């Protein structure tokens, strides 16, 4: 009798285990569900926009006048705006980021390594709206008076602030890549009489390159998707600038600034979803490439 009961309890606990494992599996595949759902949703609204306005005119159209009659929905100037800000931010963040990653992983005394890493990570914790605000009240006036231009809210100012926002991603992931280069590589070069710097430049950086490229791609992804800081600092002028010292408007800022004013289901509303679709595709691609490089660097 007792044996019977024990057996039944065991069965019960097996059923319980099974149920829990099913739930765990469902949670596991939930991320697939979400990505598909987000993509499908953007696609649905985006496609209904492209039924009324051609895709080519949308991408290559120079004018974004959503509320004039007839409205014009050309996002070329927004794409150019996002592109300029991103390239500018990378030009600053990539060299400095990689150099600090090398310093933290190879030169910094062990005792301060954790402190340096934590300080770099701290920057990632500062909310983008705070960075936008500080940029607006301190950096923008500085840029304006130093360069003697009509407004400090420019693509350059945006790039500068975004560079610091991309820095933590680039530094921490590059540092991981550099540190995971096998010891034997370094020992081999050092044993042959190479100096520490020669070893780092010719051996370590080469071996860590896939990881570093992955880090840069993730940094780029972060910059393209950045919204609040960009909206507050870059001046939001939807035109194609002739230099980086002019205001620009990015795709993200356009969505954030205009969503509140649209009529649900209207053409303008759907145009913003179409921009989101373009953004989604770009970041999907960038992160896919980043993941490929990071996967490569892990397999080594």
């Amino acid at each position, binding site marked *: 009798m007792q044996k019977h009961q024990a057996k039944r309890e065991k069965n019960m606990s*097996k059923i319980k*285990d099974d149920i*829990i*494992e099913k739930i*765990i599996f469902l*949670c*596991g*595949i*939930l*991320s*697939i569900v*979400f990505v598909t*759902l987000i993509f499908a*949703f*953007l696609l649905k609204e985006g496609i209904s926009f492209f039924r009324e306005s051609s895709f080519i005119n949308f991408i290559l159209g120079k004018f974004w006048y959503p509320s004039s009659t007839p409205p014009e929905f050309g996002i070329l100037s927004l794409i150019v705006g996002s592109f300029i800000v991103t390239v500018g931010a990378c030009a600053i963040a990539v060299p*400095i980021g990689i*150099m*600090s990653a090398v*310093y*933290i992983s190879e*030169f910094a005394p062990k005792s301060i390594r*954790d402190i*340096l890493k*934590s*300080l770099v*990570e*701290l*920057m990632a*914790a*500062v*909310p983008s709206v*705070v960075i*936008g*605000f*500080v940029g*607006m*009240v*301190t950096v923008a006036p500085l840029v304006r008076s130093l360069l003697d231009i009509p407004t400090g809210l420019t693509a350059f100012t945006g790039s500068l602030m975004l560079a*610091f926002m991309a*820095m933590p991603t680039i530094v921490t992931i590059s540092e991981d890549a550099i540190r995971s280069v096998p010891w034997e590589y370094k020992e081999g070069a050092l044993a042959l009489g190479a100096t*520490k*710097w020669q070893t780092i430049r010719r051996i370590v950086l080469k071996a860590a390159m896939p990881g570093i490229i992955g880090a840069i791609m993730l940094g780029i992804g972060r910059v*393209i*998707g950045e919204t*609040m800081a960009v909206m507050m600092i870059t001046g939001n002028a939807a035109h194609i600038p002739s230099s980086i010292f002019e205001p620009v408007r990015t795709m*993200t800022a356009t*969505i*954030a600034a205009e*969503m509140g004013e649209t009529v*649900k289901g209207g053409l303008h509303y759907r145009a913003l*979803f179409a921009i*989101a679709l373009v*953004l*989604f595709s770009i*970041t*999907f691609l960038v*992160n*896919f490439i*980043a*993941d490929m490089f990071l996967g490569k660097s892990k397999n080594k």
Partner: protein
Amino acid sequence: MIKLNPKSSQKIVSFLLLLATIIAIIPVVIIIFIIIKNGYSAISWEFLTALPKDGMRSGGIFPAIVGTLSIVFSAILITLPIGVCAAIYLNEYAKDNLLTRIIKLTIVNLAGIPSVVYGLFGFGIFVMFLGFGVSIIAGAFTLSIMELPVIITTARGALNSVPQSFREASLALGVSRWQTIRHIVLPNALPGILTGAILSIARISGETAPILFTAAAFYVPHLPQSPFDQVMALPYHLYIISTQIPNMPKNIIFGTALVLLIMVLSMSIVAIIARIYFRNRRKW
């Protein structure tokens, strides 16, 4: 050009690298300094506990603090169990097959989607389609999906750091797989999981774009009564008062930024220190 010998060029290089590291670190120090210097004068008991007055130009930011806390904690309550279960699946059950690779790829891409796109998606699904309206619950769901990849990744790291021998010892005693995870793996991974959760709370407390159209309101003169209420939120409030309201007293804006910064940074610092502490304390 003078040809440097390798020894002195190494000295120069190490100096330049140190300089780059300082440039990478200094902005966060300056930003914190500027905000503390200009904002501390606004901080008072009234500022933290009173309603805004006079078109936000005086009074306090209490509803914004409560709003942010209610959105953020609802979001973490939704996302933490799901994320931990997903991490358990990936780390303990998943085989190296096509499905697992697709899951990992979607996690990477979920992490890369711009926050404003989440905002748009959340508006479309939770506010409009499911009819939650602009509310705490719509904002919390939006943020929880956004934070899912971060929770999964940190939880996976924590599970992964539990040595395989722990599992083998338990399984060898005839304990089932789930019981092994429940009683051996999870307790050992808990510090890492909680650290990740605190970092996530810090991160989403400062997010503005995802709640822009899903939860945040310009001004609500009372505290939220139900999850379906619109709320004021600290980051959105900072955005509004720094860009939309003319003649806003500077010290109130800086004070608001300071409160937000203290909330976010104190949690991040706790998490960072906890991580270093648990890493050093680990015996295996």
